[in-house]
Every structure is written in C-alpha cells, then in structure tokens.
C-alpha cells in the first residue's frame, strides 16, 4: 500500500483510507479475538448457571463500568447504580447469551444504553460532584474540599481538580453520542469496531464522532493545550 501511495499520490490516499479493504486494528482484531476472549468463556459458564463465574466477571469489570458511568452522570452513587443495573441486565439475559463479540463490547453496549437513557431522563448538566471528597446531594453545587495548604503539592492538586472539573464540564456539553464514542475509545480503550458495536453504528461514523468531539475539546480547552 505504501508503494502504491508513493507512486500515484492523492488518489491512492483516498483509496487506501476509504476502501473496504482498509480495516482498523480493532475490526481485524475483533473478528478473531472474541473467540479467544477468556471473558466470553466465563460468560458461557454463567449461561450454564455458574454464579461464581458471574461474580468473577463483576469483580473484574465493575470498577471500569462505574468510572464509565461516572463520566456520564457526575454522581458516584448514581454511577454505581447504573453499573449494577448493567450487570443485572446481563445476568437476567444470561440464558439468551450468544457470543458475537468480546465480553467488554457486550458489557459496554449495555452500560452505554443505560447511561444514554439516564441522560435522556434527567438533565445532568451542572450537577457536578467533586472529583475528590464527599458526594454531592441532588441539586447541590460542586463544593470542592480544598486541599491542605501545608501539603507541598497542594497547589498542583487544586489546579488538577479544577482542570478535571473544567474538562468534565466540556465533556458534558458534547452531544451524547460524541461523548459516548470518545469515552469508550479514549478512556475505556475500546477499538473503533467495538465502539461501533456498542453504539450500533459504523466505524466511519465512530471516527467522525470522535473527530468532532476532539475538535470541540481542543477549542474549549485551547488555553490548557497551548
């Protein structure tokens, strides 16, 4: 492909990127990798009634799902409930489980749907919870617990908390599908193919969503990136 690019220039560039032959790492890996995904095997045990296998999956992935949900709702307690809901849905549907993708893809698909439904039901904009310290009650403004001035890196910590709060606010302004794609890809580390499966869309659409999300973030956070 590289040789073709050098010889024919821009036409080859378009062909190389837009041709169906051009697979992402995720797609190529996803096709083969779910068969060797150990979590799929564990989930098959859950399907056969092994409750210990389900505990194993919960212990392995619950924290990551809580963090994912937390980025959506900015509320630790609600994020935990959403994560539990996701696992409960999977438990309820265990008898109908048919492996078609990696377990994490399946898990985040369920979690994403729950988070998007939650966003549709409630307006979470501005309902911030500090990144450190106690959770906030509903409707309570985000009052941060200020770091101890005696601690040497207190200023850095304060700056870090403020930056985190600001980034979270920018993330909250993104359209839900852009936010989902960005978080799944950048924070949770899913491949484009897996993100596409989670959001029930195409890889091209995922690329576009992530591109627009990153453009917005770069514009809003330009001073931090300078």
């Amino acid at each position, binding site marked *: 492909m590289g040789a073709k690019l050098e010889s024919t220039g821009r036409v080859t560039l378009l062909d190389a990127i837009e041709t169906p032959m051009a697979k992402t790492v995720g797609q190529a890996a996803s096709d083969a990798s779910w068969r060797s995904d150990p979590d799929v095997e564990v989930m098959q045990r859950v399907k056969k009634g092994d409750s210990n296998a389900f505990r194993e999956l919960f212990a392995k992935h619950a924290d990551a799902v809580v963090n994912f949900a937390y980025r959506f709702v900015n509320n630790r307690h609600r994020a*935990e409930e959403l994560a539990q809901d996701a696992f409960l849905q999977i438990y309820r549907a265990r008898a109908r489980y048919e492996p078609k993708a990696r377990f994490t893809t399946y898990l985040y698909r369920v979690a994403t749907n729950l988070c998007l439904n939650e966003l549709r039901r409630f307006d979470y904009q501005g309902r911030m919870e500090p990144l450190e310290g106690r959770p906030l009650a509903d409707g309570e403004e985000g009052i941060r617990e200020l770091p101890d001035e005696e601690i040497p890196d207190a200023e850095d910590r304060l700056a870090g908390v403020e930056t985190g709060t600001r980034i979270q606010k920018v993330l909250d302004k993104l359209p839900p599908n852009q936010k989902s794609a960005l978080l799944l890809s950048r924070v949770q580390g899913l491949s484009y193919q897996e993100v596409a499966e989670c959001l029930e869309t195409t890889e091209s659409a995922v690329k576009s969503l992530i591109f627009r999300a990153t453009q917005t973030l770069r514009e809003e956070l330009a001073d931090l990136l300078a």
Partner: protein
Amino acid sequence: MRDCEIIRVELPGYANGKLGPDVVAPVRAHLQSCPGCRAELSGLERLDALLLQALPAITPSASFASRFANRLAAEAREGESQSSRRDWLGWLLQPWLIPVAAAALIAAVMFQPWFADHSTSVFPVPLIGGPQGSVASAKKPGSDAKLAERNSAPKVTVAGSNPPSEVLQRPELFVDYAVIRDLDILESGRGNGESHAG
C-alpha cells in the same frame, strides 16, 4: 487540502494506535509532508494526555459490592419464584390434562339437570331447620315429620311451576321454597291419588 481533511479524521485513531496498517501507512506518509497535520497530531496527543491526567479513576464505595450482591440475591429469589410459577402453569397445561378437563366440563353440562333436580335433597335438613327459622317451618308447622316422609317418598318433580315473586326477591328462601313446593305437591298428589316418580 482534501487529503488533510481525510487524514485529520483518522488522526485521533492514529494517535491512539487504533488504525490498521492499511490506514496507518498513508497517514504516516501524509504526516511526513504536511506540517499542518503534524501540528494537529501534536495537539491531539496533548489532549489525550490531559484527558487521562485530569480525569482520574474513581473507586467505588465500600458498600458497592455488597449492595450488588443483595440485588443479585433478590433477583435470584425472584427468578426462582417465577420459575416455580412457570412450573405450576406448565403442569396445568400438560397435554393429558386438557381432554380430562374437557370431559369434566361436558359431563357437568350433561348432568346439570340431574344436579338441579337433586340440589334440594343434598342439604335438606340444615337449610330447612336454620337458626332463624324458615319459610317451611313458619308456614308449615310440623313439617319435620313431613320432611322425613318426603325423604322416604319418591322424588316429585313439577314442570312449569315458578316460585312466587317474594321468593325470587329473596334468594335465601329459594331452596326452602322448593322443599315447600315438593311437600305441597306431595300432599296434594296423595289427596288426588296422583304422584309422579322422579
């Protein structure tokens, strides 16, 4: 310029190593010759670093796992109770039970007239000798003796006789009325020398 538009959509994936080699090669080649896209890539890499640094992972609360265990246990209990309900319904819908139920229904319809005729003789004594007295005992003193006589007598049926409106308005009297009617007919039948064996 058109190349830059195409490449920049791919840059987030390039920065994260999420592109396949077929796409990476042309992107890399373009970056070598385009300072604008290289600057774009640099900005994306800083953004990635900022996102990962400024959005630290939270740790679920101490009760998170135990709360989920409780919900899961409740779910399992609910599942068991639903399963037992399904078992019970499944037993009801067993193939052999359906013809049996149908046969029972047909038998009930066929023998309904017989049941109607014998309905008063099934519980004659308690209904007549109730604690508050009855129409029979009020209107026919000494009817106990006649009742005993009736029980030993052949069954009398009368076609086309309707209870009076008072009885229809007070359903609790209906059974007593039927007894009275039988007794009356029995008496009158004896008087006339006519009786109908049931």
